């Protein structure tokens, strides 16, 4: 089963990788990153980075080369300082470019006590040249370096220092960025806030002995003797795996610096709340429902999202507003709901059999006046249930809703109560079977529709909302039927009024309607699937 977070990640991935997606394409989003002084975050600039000593054979060779150069320059016999035999590498001023040239790949999410921990692999060099006006260099680390070697004058034991300065440009390949983020809920009850925080950004190799550093530029400013040899020694030392490791450590330090993560998280938080508000409508501070123990969410993040859904279902300003969703269903049309023929099973009422009971041209109006009360809308990990009250909301403003062949205008929600009308025919069995036909209209107050809603699918394109156990409950309803016969027959109409006023007859009619509805559950589920998909897609740029 896909977790909610998995669903979100799967949904986002193709969209953040789509240059045509104006809202979610990652490189464009990354270019929007700003430092707290408002300057662009990318490319990342950093000041002095101490990479430590270059050790090993290559480091020793650099030490020897510097020692030799010093000896020549100063005509004194020196040796690498036994107390600091290896050269120290420092990067006084560096730039990390090409971070926008990234594509998310594999993701992994783990439910934890307060939400989810998410790892996202981001591949570098995903694009080339320039895409949508954004330059797409490879991951490039460049800037100034200093290599300092401590020496000891052999004769006197005096300590001396020789330093080489220069510029470098290195392209980092065979690596990916692993972003670790925590989705969590802070605060409690009505004041909960959803946060997504990137906690670490780490470059790791994708093949053995990677990442690979390719120096495309290396200069030595200092006018030193044997400059060619010095440069060669430095290049050898810097491409040594030990030095490469130090470079990557420096890069990782820059990526995971407080300032960098802060700017990433600032953008993330804006975008997340923007997307959530866009999908569900904004929620005022302190307006979230306080959850009882009946709510069974996998994580607090799931519960938070569900609570946003619950609020959205009841929010007239939200595209999830339940009456609007119901009114927007156009295949089948639910407002008004019509059914050409509903067969009601034979009835035995007070010892008399009524057969061939058929309702024709059934029309139920006002059922989109639906409210899912917060306290009975309950999350059960992978599905939720509710008991929707029909005809309980006041009439709302006029909306345009889609219909096959053109949209129509109607108040959303429609004015209560729910009304029912149908033609009917039936035969009273007995000594002489009595065929009867006419019309019945009824107003229905206090009707409820319990249902279970199960969303499934790995991403929004496969999101399927399945309604099940949808059946109107009129056990507490007030149903006022009025029967008219063709031809009119006052006393008989009154008798049939009594017949249709009987709860057991109403239950049977309802059962037949519920059966008809159940047969359309698939189509209705499909409608809600489309409505939910488009509500989400409209906020994430399709």
């Amino acid at each position, binding site marked *: 089963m896909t977790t909610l977070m998995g669903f979100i990640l799967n949904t986002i991935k193709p969209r953040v990788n789509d240059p045509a997606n104006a809202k979610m394409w990652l490189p464009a989003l990354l270019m929007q990153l700003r430092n707290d002084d408002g300057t662009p975050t990318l490319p990342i600039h950093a000041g002095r980075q101490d990479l430590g000593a270059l050790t090993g054979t290559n480091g020793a060779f650099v030490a020897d080369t510097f020692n030799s150069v010093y000896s020549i320059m100063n005509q004194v016999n020196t040796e690498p300082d036994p107390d600091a035999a290896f050269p120290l590498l420092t990067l006084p001023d560096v730039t990390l470019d090409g971070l926008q040239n990234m594509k998310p790949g594999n993701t992994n999410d783990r439910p934890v006590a307060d939400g989810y921990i998410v790892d996202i692999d981001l591949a570098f060099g995903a694009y080339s040249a320039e895409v949508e006006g954004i330059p797409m260099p490879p991951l490039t680390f460049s800037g100034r370096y200093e290599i300092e070697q401590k020496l000891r004058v052999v004769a006197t034991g005096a300590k001396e220092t020789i330093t080489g300065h220069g510029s470098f440009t290195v392209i980092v390949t065979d690596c990916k960025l692993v972003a670790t983020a925590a989705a969590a809920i802070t605060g409690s009850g009505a004041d909960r806030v959803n946060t997504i925080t990137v906690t670490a950004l780490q470059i790791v190799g994708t093949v053995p002995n990677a990442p690979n550093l390719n120096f495309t530029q290396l200069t030595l400013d200092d006018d030193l003797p044997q400059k060619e040899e010095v440069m060669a020694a430095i290049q050898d030392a810097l491409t040594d795996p030990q030095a490469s490791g130090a470079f990557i450590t420096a890069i990782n330090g820059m990526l995971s610096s407080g300032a960098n993560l802060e700017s990433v998280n600032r953008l993330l938080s804006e975008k997340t709340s923007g997307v959530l508000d866009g999908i569900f409508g904004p929620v005022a501070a302190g307006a979230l429902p306080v959850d009882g123990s009946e709510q069974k969410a996998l994580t607090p993040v799931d519960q938070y999202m569900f609570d946003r859904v619950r609020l959205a279902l009841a929010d007239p300003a939200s595209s999830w507003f339940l009456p609007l969703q119901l009114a927007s269903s156009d295949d089948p049309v639910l407002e008004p709901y019509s059914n050409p023929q509903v067969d009601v099973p034979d009835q035995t009422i007070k010892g008399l059999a009524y057969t061939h009971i058929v309702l024709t041209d059934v029309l139920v109006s006002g059922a989109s006046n639906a409210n899912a009360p917060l306290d009975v809308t309950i999350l059960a990990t992978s599905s939720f249930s509710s008991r929707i009250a029909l005809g309980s909301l006041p009439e709302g403003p006029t909306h345009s809703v889609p219909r096959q062949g053109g949209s129509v205008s109607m108040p959303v929600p429609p004015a209560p109560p729910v009304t029912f009308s149908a033609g009917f025919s039936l035969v009273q069995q007995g000594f002489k079977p009595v065929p009867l036909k006419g019309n019945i209209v009824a107003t229905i107050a206090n009707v409820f529709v319990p249902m279970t809603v199960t969303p499934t699918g790995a991403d929004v394109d496969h999101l399927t909302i399945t309604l099940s156990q949808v059946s109107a409950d009129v056990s507490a309803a007030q149903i006022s039927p009025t029967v008219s016969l063709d031809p009119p*027959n006052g006393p*008989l109409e009154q*008798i049939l009024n009594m017949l249709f006023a009987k709860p057991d007859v109403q239950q049977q009619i309802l059962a037949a309607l519920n059966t008809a509805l159940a047969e359309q559950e698939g189509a209705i589920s499909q409608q809600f699937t489309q409505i939910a998909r488009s509500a989400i897609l409209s906020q994430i740029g399709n």
Partner: protein
Amino acid sequence: MTADDNPLIDMIENILLTPSSDFYIATILHDPNGGALDPRTIDSVDLGTISLEGVQIGIVIRNLVVRGLSNVQVAFDSEGNPEISVDGDSVTFHAVLPNQQAGYTRPPDVPAVAAAHGDLDVTIAGQPMPPGTILLTISAVQDLKGVFTATEGAGGLSTVEITFTALSVGLDLAAGVMKITVDLATVFKETINHILNQPDMQASFLEKVNAQISSPDVLASLSQVATKARAALGTN
């Protein structure tokens, strides 16, 4: 209005004719609590005084308990139509005993043969005799006739009132459907039995019984029972 052009009449026929219906004729006439026709206790029937060889014999029947008169079904005319007529809100039915309709099951307290028993108070020349008993059987009823109206009560149709306005038992006495047996400690016992089984005496007896069962009290009681059964018309 005839049954042909008003389905309401067909429905009333169905209601009265269908054994499973709560308003089935045998059902509304039967009330184990004694509120309807079966059983029916008649407090007293004063048969008056007969003169036998110059001796005045007074006969009064008390606590006459009649059982089995609900074992009836709607009668059919020679064309096979049920004898039910509707005039406005007034319904008249004619029924016969015994009920031979398929689907009807006689309740345990309804005897196969209608019967009555009671106490007998006899005075001879003004002198009361020791108490006696009377037993009678009715093997067939040729015409049990009832008339009722269905009218709305104050609460609309859910309070529709069934009001019986007439109820009578018609017997073919000449065919000997009624048999009366008295038991009394007197030498006049056989004579009294004989007199009471004379057709004119039985007719007089029947007339007095009919007067009792069509009394306002009995009709009101029956109406009450039937009103409870009105559910068959569609109400609760």
